[in-house]
């Protein structure tokens, strides 16, 4: 079975075949023979050439979050045909702006910009209180503030759009 695996903006073809209770995983030119088990949910025990790895795999928003020996990777795995169909339809929307969304539930305690204001990377945009700490969010790109969708005192949920910069 062939997959497209995306890690750090790079997509590679990965093939998984199975024989005698083991797996052969081919990534580009690299072929690994893998003795894989799932001793508990989301925990993969992999023996690869005698080396014992334990990988924690969690799915989040269609990506696999993989932890191996304290390193974390975010990998998207799609069946190859699906990946080809999806990407033929055009690359994902990539533009210069910033859409600031709430990463967790919280309360807006300060807005540091106004609509129409020009910002540069590092400029403070907004202060949100969550878990008893105030967290300042800053601009990651240069641009102009197009929308401010929240006001001071408002409670927000994860994913809520707070500010749009173009």
């Amino acid at each position, binding site marked *: 079975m062939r997959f497209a695996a995306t890690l750090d903006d790079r997509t590679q073809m990965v093939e998984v075949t199975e024989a005698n209770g083991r797996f052969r995983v081919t990534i580009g030119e690299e072929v690994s023979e893998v003795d*894989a088990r799932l001793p508990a949910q*989301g925990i993969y025990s992999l023996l690869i050439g005698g080396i014992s790895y334990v990988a924690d795999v969690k799915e989040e928003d269609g990506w696999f979050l993989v932890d191996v020996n304290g390193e974390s990777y975010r990998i998207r795995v799609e069946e190859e045909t699906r990946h080809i169909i999806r990407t033929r339809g055009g690359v994902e929307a990539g533009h210069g702006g910033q859409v600031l969304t709430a990463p967790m539930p919280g309360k807006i305690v300060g807005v540091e910009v106004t609509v129409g204001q020009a910002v540069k990377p590092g400029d403070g945009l907004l202060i949100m209180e969550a878990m008893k700490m105030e967290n300042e969010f800053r601009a990651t790109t240069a641009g102009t503030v197009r929308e401010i969708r929240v006001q001071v005192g408002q409670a927000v949920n994860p994913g809520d759009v707070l500010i749009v910069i173009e």
Partner: protein
Amino acid sequence: MKTPFRKILIANRGEIAVRIIRACRELGITSVAVFSEADREALHVLMADEAYLLGPPPAAESYLAIEKIIRTAKASGAEAVHPGYGFLAENAAFAEACIQAGLVFIGPPPAAMRALGDKTAARRAALAKNVPMVPGTTEPVGSEDEAARAAREIGYPVMLKAAMGGGGKGLRLVRSEGELASALRMARSEAGSAFGDSSVYVEKYLEEPRHIEIQVLADSQGTTIHLGERECSIQRRHQKLVEECPSPMVDDAMRKRMGEAACRLVAAVGYVNAGTVEFLVDRQKNFFFLEMNTRLQVEHPVTELVTGRDLVKEQIRIAGGETLGYGQADVTWTGWAIECRIYAEDPYRNFMPSPGTIIGLRTPAGPWVRDDSGVYEGAAVPIFYDSLISKLIVWGPDRAAAIARMARALAEYKVVGVRTTIPLLQHIMAHPDFVAGRVSTHFLDGMLRAERPEAEGRHRTVALIAAALAGYERAGRTTLPLTSSRPSAWKSSARPGWSRPR
């Protein structure tokens, strides 16, 4: 050990409530937990002998609701109240309310709390007892102008500090006058919401200091001793992340001088119970009084492992009127202990809190590893409270052995479902400056600046293999033998109607 109380109410949550419940159980004391609506299934509720609801999730309506807590304590038949740290632990009004209700407050007398817990009052007391101090205002500043005047006089950089504060909240570093106004506003706002008092004072900011603190114990018969120092220089946002006992900088003579200064200060105000005197230490080993924490400290376990003294049991014994039963000469320090704080935060996204449900948890164990946790697999990390989920503490015969053990234990620690400080703590244990004991309160900022936040990529191929296998499974290739011959652990016990509805 005899039992000073039959029943104690623990006015706290999380790992420290669990810590106190364990001490109660070992002393044969019935433990009473209190909880907010967000914490019905929290570990401290499951572990306590009794548990009572306080109110809605916000702390002001639950863990800070003095009247409700006292009413619950009386109704449950508790004889004493342990406040833990944070919440009401340094609130003299709460201590007084306990005493007025006929409950023993397991902490210092309210007068001593007021004299040392209020940071400006503490500075006056330190001045009086010749404890060296960092220059600053001894009174809270009123207007923005007053703050600006004080800062100019002291000289930038300065720190703004909540007078009633602790735990890194209500603190702001100000490097120039331009930053003062907004920093003052934020410090006041944080102080108000965290401590119910928005008073702020100004202090000189030392460059690259160490943060070293002295643990004191005083009984009600007038014996005051210290249990040595803790090195707490590894901080993020002025909140401690790694602590050790002893400090790599402190030798016997320095320990003696610092300990004596700390005892002098607390004895002067009639202090009773456990407390911590915090110092900043410059490169020349000069120490300056920073503040006093009139309560149990988060990092108390490192002192416990090196001295063999159980600080929570000592607190309870002292509150019950017992004498310490030993003196300064009986206190010894053996080996080295290190604590790492496991926060539900993303260390590579500016320590953004990461609340959620812990869907997978494997805790480290084995020789000389102690896990003081407030969670379990399946537990929620609510958005309403501090994000500390556990403290990992190790002991070793020397510092190198303790560091190696901590690295080993951190590698065993797995938390799935929320981001934690574990990866950062692993990097700290491997950092040459930390290993060499070259630390200051700026260590962490410097390390984070120098470091690439991404994974190093050593295990890139393995991660891709695991992800590909997960994809293969997800695709429904159920013939795959990713399973042993025995039945799936969780699945075999899951029957329809048994598991929770989605």
